[in-house]
């Protein structure tokens, strides 16, 4: 069976006056129906750009290429105008990061929610309202009928994010891309929103690509994880495998810098030294070489490929891949046959 979303060799280049900047390079993953994939990486690592490219929302200054970009049997690279409009929105949809700016301040929640219906389906106003109210009820907003006539500024951040989720799920999409939907929210609301996503996914079988820089969220919500660094996937594995045996030095650094309640709280948290590299050097060497504690000569000379590894003495629990020459320095791992 083929996956719902297949991305391979996705590259995004921005043309600016000072030359080209490659924001995403050789990005790819597969996502099955009903699956949740976490995509982590620091700010500017290309998480959002890659997904905006998949959705076709990047500005004209971005040049997008992909070896393969398939969604539910449709080749997204070949779709034009009307076809892609029919697919986006109803079939693939997105929850945005900032609930303050993802709602038009001048439209009522009801108008906002039914926009997708107005654009796509010639639903009657009453029918659209009914569906919008049902969607609001589904994301746990009380008295949804009355809230339809409320303006965004009258809602709290958490409520607005719920509206954003209701909006994204209104047409029962097969794929939901959640771009840091909890980053702008405080912790308790975060937990509620995550619960909500989990429940809705369970009910509708939506596949979720969850973009975040919180490893805690990934651990709680996702089945598989992709770690991005400087526009490239440096490691991909099941959540269990990644947290138990991170292979890439960057992933190890990330995990080490997560505060733990059971750890030694008197010492400062370890941090990854240095800053993310500028993209230009990332062409000929491992992008992480400048900050890597395990760096060797070959890391600076050539770009490591993503290879598959399995744990010694264990059947592979899904594919654990990483792009690092030193991955075998991790204990008890060996390259897959």
């Amino acid at each position: 069976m083929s996956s719902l979303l297949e991305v391979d060799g996705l590259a995004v280049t921005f043309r600016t006056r000072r030359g080209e900047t490659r924001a995403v390079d050789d990005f790819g993953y597969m996502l099955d129906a009903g699956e949740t994939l976490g995509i982590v990486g620091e700010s500017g690592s290309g998480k959002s750009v890659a997904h905006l490219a998949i959705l076709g929302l990047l500005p004209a200054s971005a040049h997008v290429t992909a070896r393969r970009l398939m969604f539910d049997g449709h080749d997204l690279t070949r779709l034009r105008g009307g076809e892609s409009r029919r697919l986006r929105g109803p079939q693939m949809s997105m929850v945005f990061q900032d609930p303050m700016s993802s709602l038009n301040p001048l439209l009522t929640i009801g108008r906002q929610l039914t926009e997708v219906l107005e654009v796509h389906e010639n639903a009657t106003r009453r029918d659209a309202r009914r569906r919008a109210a049902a969607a609001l009820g589904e994301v746990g907003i009380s008295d949804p009928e009355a809230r339809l006539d409320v303006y965004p500024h009258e809602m709290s951040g958490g409520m607005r994010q719920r509206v954003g989720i209701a909006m994204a799920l209104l047409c029962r999409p097969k794929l939901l891309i959640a771009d840091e939907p909890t980053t702008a929210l405080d912790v308790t609301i975060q937990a509620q929103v995550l619960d909500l996503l989990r429940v809705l996914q369970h009910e509708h079988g939506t596949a979720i690509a969850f973009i975040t820089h919180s490893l805690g969220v990934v651990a709680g919500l996702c089945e598989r994880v992709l770690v991005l660094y400087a526009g490239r996937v440096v490691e991909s594995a099941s959540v269990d495998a990644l947290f138990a045996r991170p292979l890439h030095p960057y992933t190890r650094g990330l995990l080490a810098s997560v505060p733990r309640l059971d750890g030694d709280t008197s010492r400062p948290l370890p941090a990854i030294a240095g800053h993310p590299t500028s993209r230009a050097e990332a062409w000929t060497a491992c992008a992480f070489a400048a900050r890597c504690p395990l760096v060797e000569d070959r890391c600076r000379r050539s770009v490591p490929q993503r290879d598959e590894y399995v744990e010694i003495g264990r059947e592979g629990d899904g594919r654990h891949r990483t792009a690092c020459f030193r991955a075998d320095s991790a204990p008890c791992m060996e390259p897959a046959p």
Partner: protein
Amino acid sequence: MTGGDDRWLQASPGPWRRAWEDLRANRPAFVAFWFLAVVAALSLVAPLLPLPSPIALKLADEPLAPTAPWNAFTTGGFRPEYWDLSALDRALVALRQSIFGDLQTAHWLGTDQKGRDLLARIVWGSRTSLAVGLLATLASLVVGVTWGAVAGLAGGRVDRVMMRIVDALYSLPFIFVVIFLITVMDGWREELQGTLGLSRESLFYVTIGLFFWLTMARVVRGQVLQLRHAEFISAARLAGARWPWILRVHVLPNVLGIVVVYLTLSIPSVLLFESFLSFLGLGIEPPKVSWGLLAVEGADAISPLGLDWWLVVAPAVAMGSVLLALNVLGDGLRDALDPKGGPA
């Protein structure tokens, strides 16, 4: 659900409603708003008002200073003399005669050196200002807003070309171009009038319309550039909305606030410009009146023989109060339409 919550839900005014309420709470701006409304109404219905003719001469009389009581009417002696009025205005004047007959205001603001009633001249002159103001508004709204919004949304090459056109028009020294055009056109007056029906006045209006949308286009483009990356626009695109829909539903309503504010703050400059050109003798021509022409006549009235001060003061007060009201209203609108609420 508690009762209190219900009330909160019902009392949820839309953003425009809230702006209106904020404006109402702002006393000076609200007064300015009604003052402008009254001025506009008076100038619209000028032919209906029981005013003396603005151009009927009484050359034998000395200029008359404004004299109390300012509520006196005279009957008899109304001479329905006007310039070439439009059919509508002629009908209105006829209606005025059938309602008021010969009744007309006494010379509340005095008369000028040719014995014409100053109040009538100011009220009729306000129609020129209104026309110029409306024209500038229309050009700004229709051409300027569309131009700026399309350029901002399209981005890239389209944006660059459209904005370079604006830059090029901007770089023409506006006043000189107008003066030059009008002076040159004066040479072919008869021909223009005959073949194209283009009078100097319409040429004057055309030039104002041609130039006045430029700043609005820039203002709107700047706003749209900011808005373009708002997540709700991405959401709308993702929902499958086409560009015209996004423009109409998401972009234009969100720039409307700044457009309104900018309009109220920029209309004074076009009113002043009309006065300036008329003052130079390049705008409105006698026997028509405009506030600029009244200012010229006022200036002429200052002579060693006697100071007919009211001929200077009355038009200046009329113009000044309208400009002040527009500025106060613009300020008030800026506060009222500020989504962050402005000073409480």
